[in-house]
């Protein structure tokens, strides 16, 4: 939450705007769906998800999360902890937009239940910068124009940071292979490769 407010510029951001119209704008579209599901829902025997308490560290801060058992780490980050930097793409582990680092390794947060994160140390895109100073990988992505629309970028950057610390990719071909879990619809792959190589050489 701290990360959300830091570095915020004056004026209304896209996210602020969406939050403002949410109660009214979203209400209009959701209302018909709600009434339909109320009609269809069986009256009884709907088990409630059990609540699970999970202790973990996110971007260096200790958290005690009390959530329904079926909340994924991705949804916990975005919807409960208000850290929308991690993106939801396919939600099935195929696109890599949701990549975060867990205990130093990159994972797909969409396929990870929050309840399975007991004791884990999680780093998201919000946790890479040191205050105002961007992480070298973030700097390199900017320098090499390693994105176009930017939606896959948080996942690409987290994956690239994991790739370097995991230390198995030394050639262009190996980097491409090791980044194959991150899809970029804009096709910025060549520039992503250049960014990673630069950080790898200076690391």
């Amino acid at each position, binding site marked *: 939450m701290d990360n959300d407010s830091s570095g915020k510029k004056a004026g209304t951001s896209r996210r602020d705007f969406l939050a403002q119209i949410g109660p009214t704008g979203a209400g209009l579209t959701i209302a018909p769906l709600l009434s339909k599901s109320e009609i269809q829902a069986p009256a009884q025997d*709907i*088990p*409630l*998800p*059990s609540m*699970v308490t999970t202790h973990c560290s996110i971007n260096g801060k200790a958290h005690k999360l009390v959530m*329904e*058992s*079926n909340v*994924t780490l991705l949804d916990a980050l975005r919807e409960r902890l208000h850290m929308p930097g991690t993106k939801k793409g396919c*939600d*099935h*582990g195929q696109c*890599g937009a949701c*990549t975060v680092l*867990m205990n130093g*390794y*990159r*994972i*797909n947060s969409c*396929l*990870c*239940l929050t*309840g*399975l994160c*007991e004791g884990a140390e999680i780093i998201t895109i919000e946790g890479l910068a040191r205050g105002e100073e961007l992480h070298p990988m973030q700097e390199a992505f900017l320098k090499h124009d390693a994105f176009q629309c930017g939606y896959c970028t948080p996942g690409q950057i987290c*994956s690239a940071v*994991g*790739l370097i610390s*995991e230390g*198995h990719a030394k050639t262009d071909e190996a980097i*491409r*292979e*090791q980044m*194959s*879990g*991150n899809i970029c619809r804009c096709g910025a792959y060549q520039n992503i490769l250049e960014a990673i190589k630069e950080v790898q050489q200076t690391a």
Partner: protein
Amino acid sequence: MIPFALIRIKDNETAIQNGSAKGSKFIAGGTNLIDLMKLDIEKPQKLVDINALDLHQITVLPNGHVRVGALVKNTAFAYHPEIVKRFPVISEAILSGASPQLRNMASTGGNILQRTRCYYFYDTSFACNKREPGSGCSAINGYNRNHAILGASESCIATHPSDLCVALTALDAVVFTQGPKGKRSLLFSEFHRLPGTTPQIENVLQPGELITAIEIPALNFASRSCYLKVRDRASYEFALASAAVALDISNGKINQSRIALGGVGTKPWRSKEAEKQLAGLVIGKEAFRKAADVALADARPHMHNGFKTELAKRTLVRALMTASEIA
């Protein structure tokens, strides 16, 4: 995902006790299970989180066998120095599958238990005997380009998706389990079942039975082994055909070999017939092609996967050429 209970357990006995209950499932990495739960294909009432169990080690035993704990991540398995050096076919098989993110999450036990990626199994609007026993198979008369040409039945033609399993069956790995009735070990080739009339039953595990480890027997010539995978994309895709091979060669002749195929069978497909065919022959394309013909002799293609028979043969030949250092 439909609602479910999630419990964490710390010892095998409690895990087995909880896992034995109807509607319970063990969860480790969860990469396949969570995906299937999101699609309402898997609908457990209770998930038993086994990640705290003491099954995370890779151990070299005094007899040279390598024991891999069921919770060892695919990444750790693939890059373990002992595996890279002595069993390259395993390392290559693991690294040819999924993405780094998934391999960092996925466990050894889970890899072996992963379910088919048949698109009719995944799409709940289609009939599927594996997902809903007795409902029929949409693939047999549907679009079956990705489907099995070996080991299929009237009920199911879905391929087994794992790369690791192809290498493990080639090397005669052993699966160690612990269940309500005690501990047992199972030969890898006997772990997975052919679909027959019950494609929903994919292996011989009993309710509550937990995989604790995989053991890879010491096999000197396995250092001369490789895994070749052919697929529609260069990376991050399941096999159309794959081959795991190991060769014992002296004076240009084959003493023994190990041969298994992936992407073409309803289970990881060991071909002892092809191994027998190769014994005593001079290494070379001619001998390898004969072995490939034998390995695929029982192939039964469907409407759209006829190409797989020749593709699997060529894949196997190329893998054997690579392992014998001819190619």
